[in-house]
């Protein structure tokens, strides 16, 4: 009963592991470039939850700092990614990654 009522480190870790798994699942299964990037955002945020939870229970500030930087980097990455995807749409008229394959093995 205690596990249900009292929120501890494990709860955070389970949530973050699930988020990470969902993100990875989206990256692997989805064909739309934008959805793939959303999956990557989930993975980054899963790591953020980990950092914050560990920071709370370890008592250090490093985790908080780390997650702040990751948020900024995720925003920068989204900016670059969207620019590249817009360019993809202009040249290929699609954002479906399976049809963007002009170079062959």
């Amino acid at each position: 009963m205690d596990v249900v009522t009292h929120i501890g480190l494990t709860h955070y870790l389970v949530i973050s592991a699930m988020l990470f798994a969902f993100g990875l699942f989206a990256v692997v299964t989805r064909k739309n470039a934008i959805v793939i990037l959303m999956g990557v955002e989930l993975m980054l945020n899963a790591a953020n939850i980990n950092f914050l939870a560990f920071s709370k229970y370890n008592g250090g500030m490093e985790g908080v700092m780390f997650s702040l930087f990751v948020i900024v980097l995720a925003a920068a990455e989204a900016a670059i990614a969207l620019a590249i995807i817009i360019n993809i749409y202009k040249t290929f008229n699609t954002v479906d990654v399976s049809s963007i394959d002009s170079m062959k093995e």
Partner: protein
Amino acid sequence: MYELPTGAEIQAIITTIKSGALHFLPEIWLSGLFLLLILADLVLRPKSHHVFSLMSLAGLAGSLWFIYQQHAMVGTSIFFGMYVVDEFSLFFKYFFVVSAMLTVLLSMPSDELNERCSSLGEYYALVTGMLIGMIMMASATDLLMIFLSMELVSFAAYVLTGYLKRERRSTEAALKYLVYGAVSSAMLLYGFSILYGLTGTTAIAGISSVLMERGYDPLTMIVASVLIITGIGYKIGAVPFHFWSPDVYEGAPLPVTAYLSVASKAAGFALLIRFFYVAVPHVQGGEAFTPGMDWVTILMILSVASMIYGNVVALWQTNVKRILAYSSIAHAGYALLGIIVMDELGTQATLFYLLSYLIMNFGAFLVAILIANKTGSEHIDDYRGLGRRMPLAGAAMTVFLISLVGLPPTVGFIGKLMIFSALLAKGSVFVWLAVIGILTSVISLYYYMLIPLNMYLRESHKQLPDSLPSPFLPQLVTAALMMLTIYYGIFFTPLSDFARYAVALFANQLY
């Protein structure tokens, strides 16, 4: 929950940062160059992009002076232990600045960039930005700093890869690079978060001491190790994290491909070496590695897979860029061998190998650019009959390729010799690694030699003029690189001493 710092504490922090900045001058100088290049592009809007290339060449040469000054401050840790100036980072600072200069020199004659791009101001700024990131990757001693610098390199690299934005190949390469890069960096970050949770610190030296002291759960450690190796393996382009590299190398502009394959890969190796030796706990006295952190076995698998896969798949390639891409996967495998040995000799061999790869790979790409300027193609059939028409390019390409195979008297031979002798000196299973390395080198002889074969012994189907002259400057650089490849193959002591100087730092941490 957390207490705010007092005024005196804030003062102390500012003083530390100020004194740290004095050990950070090369990076500050390069950041200034980066801003200057962007501003110059906005304000001047010059007709010829040679203004920028000359400006960045001058700026990069200036940064060498600042790096030289740092020899006096070796061994200082700055910014609260996040960043370090030591022999190892100095080695890589020189390495990266020289490779950025070569990239600029390769970009100047490239028609691909000059004719198909509207503006090249940001191009040189991005090359500089990527350089700053790589320098920081080699010097970072904190998980946060490692992650930030890796992302800085990646972001600049994504944009550079897609720089020819009207070309399908280049745009596609940028997307592929972006997707693989974003996923692997997210995995790396998750691995870091687990590591932070286990140890409560983000300093890599602290991580290893806490892990040794407190012990850890092997299963958790395996997960963290695999995630982190995914992130680093992507940067060095080792199998099975190589999927991006052939397409990205083919699609990116040629100078960018050269930059990625040499400098970005070397930055990954710098990070791997530091992380592997400092953060991963090793048990004193040889083979008994701690459970869950058995990086040596993982790296062995990566290395063998890279050597075999890279060399075998290259056999079927018909595009010179792709041949060089697969060869760069194979070379990542060879360079990994030196790290696996885990002693001073092995690390020195890896660093030497990276130096030799710098010279010969930039050379090969420069010749590919000169040829692409004339024929507009990188297909191996379009290399037919060029040996007679472009005598210097043909001779130089042959020398670089012989060096990439690892035959004497070239610098590539010495690099392979050092790696294999480090393996043989270690004995046992390492001998087999050396055998695999030698056998795969023999395979590589075939696909490398196809290029000179086409250049010299086969006649072109197309009507080509009897001579295809190139401009003076790129010819000069080609000749210089060719001479260096042979010169350092005979008088290799300066390079190997330089590499030994760089690993002196790790002497007390290697077991």
